[in-house]
């Protein structure tokens, strides 16, 4: 069709549509020059124009589709059949496992879904059914049992026993197991595999991530997702329907594959034996014998390299390992049952003869003597245990210094410090002084001796990042403050380091250098990694770094960008959401960002909630939600319960105490506020914000002279940090020293025009210089042309000038827009002049601060 023709059709269509239907035909005939095909064309268009097509935009449908394209954790919070999905337990290449409550039977179950996009739907479905059938056949206490194969809302999933515990992989991050424990675990794993092999099932994906260790050291083998039924050897030619399932590409985790699996050959039970051998080796030696820098090298090693068996282990045990890890499957154990009986036999050979047999074999005289010796040994060891367990060691962790010459690595030095502190804080017998988890802490150069004395700790851990011959090194030293000696020092190469392994390694070494050890419950919490994605963790660290720098728009924006990248990489990374929340929560003031409080807080709230949905036990997330309730919702009870929960979860989490003290100040509970701000400051001895916060809680408590002394002291140590100056000016105003306040504020303004403008206007008003106060008002107006200025800034100036009507006018505006400062209406001495006014009580009521 030519564009002329098209144009003509369109013109006729529009013109004829305007006419009565009865007139349309005549008109069309006339205008088309009696062209019947043209008339028919236009008529058919007019007729079709009454169809309902396109009436509702598809955009909301599009969002529904988008939201249903699976993404890790997407099911949390949903109810599927009678299962209430509460938490994402794990997500891997193949699928996701959720924790859910079975509402019928009121018990917790794990639900396993397979990922779409991994293969075609039919293949996935058959895998799920296969797994369910495979496991359903196996009744073994070392295999996680299956409750059923479910189909709800058109989707299949497996409901299975929920086992609390950690994966063997995470257990091993703290180093190898003792021989006895490794044997115990190995026997249980072999028992599970043996049950499978007896039913003709090959697991095909035996690895440390698929083995759960319960708190009482029971083993549960998981994930028969790749399991395959195999026919007895003579029948393998005659493949059955079940047998034909083959996954696209190589399945199984590369580092635990058998040589035949790496070659893509047909697998039988002996492949599981090889993978088991790797797991067993790792339990004893602490490392995978074939793991190399990358996948292809690892595969090469599996196929060609002999495992390093020069281990300090009994010969018989080494023989078992060797037979599992033979490249030629004919040389391995035939199946798991034979393997298990070998392990059992070796375990028995290690058990000491029972005591009574020993007694029987000797006469009484020796027995008595021996008993006395035993008693001594028992007494001695219990004393030893007592002494060890009762000692609490105090340690200060100093900010790791970035001396690599690359400022881009600041995030790494700070992030490592922070996560090491997190790790240490879980150790009950270690009393840790934090470096700083709050902003403004990073450029401190601390003298170690002084630090140790100031903090009255027994040890100081310090570290630095260094560049050496192109390599990035982390040098850590543990200093004994009593004599200045070095207890431990080590360099770690960070070039290829996995952050998780590194942190666990450092924790273990520090703990053992202090003569402490990690006990059961602690290990579990230590091994809880925030994310399994190393890159996501690095992005998160970068986010925290920028959020922790001087709070400014640019830094907060950067931090937000990094947190979002971390979430992209791992959408179930709870702490990254919490980081985002914390950024948004402080963005609604002049200096931090031009976002309206409602927008900033909606984002803060959503992200905090997201973090909690992902991990309800995350102190950071509870703190974030508390901040939103404090600064925006003005829901004091909720805020308090969130802060308390965070503190309960992690008593050493300084930001929780910091923000809790703010809440208490707002509520006029000044004594408690001062206690909390003291705790926050102590936990965070190098945080300038925590210092400022303590002084501010004194100021809010009207302990003005104390506050003056305190800030004077701080400023004598650091005259660059503007918040100290600002607080000092406010204190001067309370003391009636207007000129002194003006001097401070004018000086500050030359450094940073965003700081303290309102206080300066107030000061001029009070000092009887209304013209200058008016100038400040104009400045605020000018500023508001560029960015929204919180209305209470102007209110404060009007209070100084004695204009209550205007002051209330602007305070009302700030309140309507829910600026965070309104939460401090009662606490802030700047509003004291207004308190007697009935309008102030109205404000208080609306913020929810007045007593009933």
């Amino acid at each position, binding site marked *: *069709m030519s*564009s002329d023709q*098209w144009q003509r059709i*369109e013109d006729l*269509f*529009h013109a004829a*549509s305007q006419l009565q239907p009865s007139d349309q035909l005549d008109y069309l005939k006339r205008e088309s020059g009696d062209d019947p095909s043209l008339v028919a064309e236009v008529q*058919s*268009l*007019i*007729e*079709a*124009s009454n*169809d309902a*097509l*396109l009436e509702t*935009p*598809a*955009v*909301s*449908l*599009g*969002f*529904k*589709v*988008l*939201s*249903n*394209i*699976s*993404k890790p954790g*997407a*099911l949390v*919070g949903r109810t599927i059949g009678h299962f209430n999905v509460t938490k994402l337990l794990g997500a891997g290449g193949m699928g996701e496992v959720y924790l859910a409550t079975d509402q019928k039977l009121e018990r917790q179950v794990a639900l396993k*879904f*397979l*990922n*779409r996009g991994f293969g075609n*739907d*039919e293949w*996935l*479905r058959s895998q799920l059914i296969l797994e369910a059938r495979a496991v359903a056949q196996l009744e073994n206490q070392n295999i996680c049992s299956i409750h059923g194969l479910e*189909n709800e*809302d*058109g*989707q*299949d999933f497996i409901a299975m026993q929920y086992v609390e515990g950690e994966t063997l992989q995470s257990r091993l991050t703290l180093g190898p197991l003792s021989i006895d424990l490794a044997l115990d675990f190995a026997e249980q794993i072999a028992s599970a595999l043996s049950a499978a092999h007896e039913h003709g099932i090959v697991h095909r994906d035996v690895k440390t991530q698929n083995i759960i260790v319960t708190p009482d050291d029971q083993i549960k083998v998981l994930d028969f997702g790749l399991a395959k039924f195999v026919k007895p050897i003579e029948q393998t030619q005659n493949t059955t329907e079940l047998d034909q399932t083959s996954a696209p590409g190589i399945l199984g985790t590369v580092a635990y594959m058998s040589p035949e699996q790496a070659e893509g050959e047909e697998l039988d039970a002996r492949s599981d034996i090889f993978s088991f051998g790797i797991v067993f080796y790792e339990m004893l030696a602490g490392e995978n014998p074939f793991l190399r820098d990358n996948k292809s090298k690892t595969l090469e090693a599996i196929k060609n390299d002999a495992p390093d068996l020069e281990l300090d282990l009994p010969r018989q045990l080494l023989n078992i390992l060797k037979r599992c890890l033979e490249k030629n499957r004919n040389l391995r154990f035939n199946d798991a049952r034979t393997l298990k009986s070998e392990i059992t036999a070796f375990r028995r050979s290690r058990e000491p003869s029972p005591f009574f047999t020993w007694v029987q074999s000797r006469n009484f005289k020796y027995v008595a003597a021996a008993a006395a010796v035993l008693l001594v040994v028992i007494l001695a060891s219990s004393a030893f245990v007592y002494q060890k367990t009762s000692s609490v060691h105090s340690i200060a962790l100093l900010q790791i210094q970035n001396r690599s010459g690359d400022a881009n690595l600041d995030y790494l030095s700070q992030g490592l410090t922070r996560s090491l502190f997190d790790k240490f804080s879980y150790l009950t017998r270690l009393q840790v002084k934090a470096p700083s988890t709050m902003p403004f802490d990073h450029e401190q150069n601390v003298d170690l001796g002084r630090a140790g004395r100031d903090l009255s700790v027994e040890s100081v851990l310090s570290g630095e990042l260094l560049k050496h011959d192109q390599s990035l090194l982390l040098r850590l030293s543990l200093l004994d403050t009593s004599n200045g000696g070095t207890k431990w020092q080590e360099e770690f190469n960070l070039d290829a380091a996995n952050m998780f392994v590194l942190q666990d390694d450092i924790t273990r070494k520090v703990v053992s250098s202090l003569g402490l050890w990690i006990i059961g419950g602690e290990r579990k919490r230590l091994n809880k990694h925030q994310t399994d994605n190393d890159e996501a963790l690095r992005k998160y660290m970068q986010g925290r770094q920028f959020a922790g720098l001087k709070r400014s728009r640019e830094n907060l*924006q950067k931090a937000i*960008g990094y947190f*979002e*990248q971390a*979430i*992209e990489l791992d959408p179930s990374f709870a702490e990254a959401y919490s980081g985002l929340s914390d950024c948004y929560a402080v963005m609604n003031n002049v200096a931090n960002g031009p976002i309206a409080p409602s927008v900033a807080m909606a984002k803060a709230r*959503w992200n905090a909630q*997201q973090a909690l949905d992902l991990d309800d036990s995350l102190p950071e997330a509870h703190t974030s939600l508390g901040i939103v309730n404090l600064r925006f919702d003005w829901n004091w009870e909720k805020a308090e319960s969130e802060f308390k929960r965070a503190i309960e979860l992690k008593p050493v989490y300084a930001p929780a105490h910091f923000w809790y003290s703010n809440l208490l100040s707002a509520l006029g509970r000044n004594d408690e506020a001062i206690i909390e701000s003291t705790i926050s400051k102590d936990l965070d001895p190098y945080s300038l914000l925590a210092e400022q916060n303590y002084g501010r809680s004194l100021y809010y408590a009207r302990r003005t002279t104390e506050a003056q002394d305190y800030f004077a002291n701080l400023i004598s140590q650091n005259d660059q940090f503007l918040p100290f100056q600002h607080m000092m000016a406010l204190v001067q105003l309370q003391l009636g020293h207007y000129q002194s306040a003006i001097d401070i504020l004018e000086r500050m303004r030359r450094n940073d025009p965003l700081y303290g403008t309102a206080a300066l206007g107030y000061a001029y008003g009070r000092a009887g210089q209304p013209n200058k106060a008016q100038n400040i008002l104009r400045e605020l107006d000018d500023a508001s042309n560029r960015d929204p200025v919180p209305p209470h800034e102007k209110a404060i100036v009007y209070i100084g000038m004695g204009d209550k009507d205007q002051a209330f006018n602007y305070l009302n505006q700030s309140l309507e827009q829910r600026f965070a400062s309104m939460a401090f209406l009662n606490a802030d001495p700047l509003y004291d002049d207004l308190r007697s006014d009935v309008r102030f009580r109205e404000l208080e009521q609306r913020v929810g601060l007045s007593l009933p």
Partner: protein
Amino acid sequence: MSDPSDITELLIRWSSGDKNALEKLMPLVERELHRLAHYYMRHEHIGHTLQTTALINEAFLRLVDQTRVQWQNRAHFFGIAAQIMRRVLLNYARDRHRQKRGGHAVQVSLSDVAIISDDKSAELIALDEALERLAEIDLRKTRVVELRFYGGLSVEETAEVLGVSTITVNRDWKMAKAWLSREIRNVL
């Protein structure tokens, strides 16, 4: 590459005619829409206050440095979002259609909880094909449909994106609707 400043830069380049920029931009915008969609669906029960076009705007605010763009860039952003929605819906409808044709009554993943009925799927597929044909005759009308139907834009916003008057948008919309309806009638 998901640094906001890069997205802003790409958007500015696309708005000024750089075709390569669009290719890089699409996946970034789609990821954000995906994320927001999850958020939206998850919190839908809390309140139905969120408008879906507001979500696209939200994506725009989050991805793009507001200080560096002009309203034309915003319009282009909406145009991109509309194209993404069109593709997402088409793929979904096709998947569904294929499954039905394959005779697999049982569905496998969550995405198959009937969001879109079979009839609607067939309609979406037919509509997309008709739009392809319309694009050969009158590209602007296709764009109008994309923006209004898939992007949820108002007449005024659509006019803004395409740089034409609202009268033109209204005329295009009316004609395109009639034409597409008739084409689809022939297929369905």
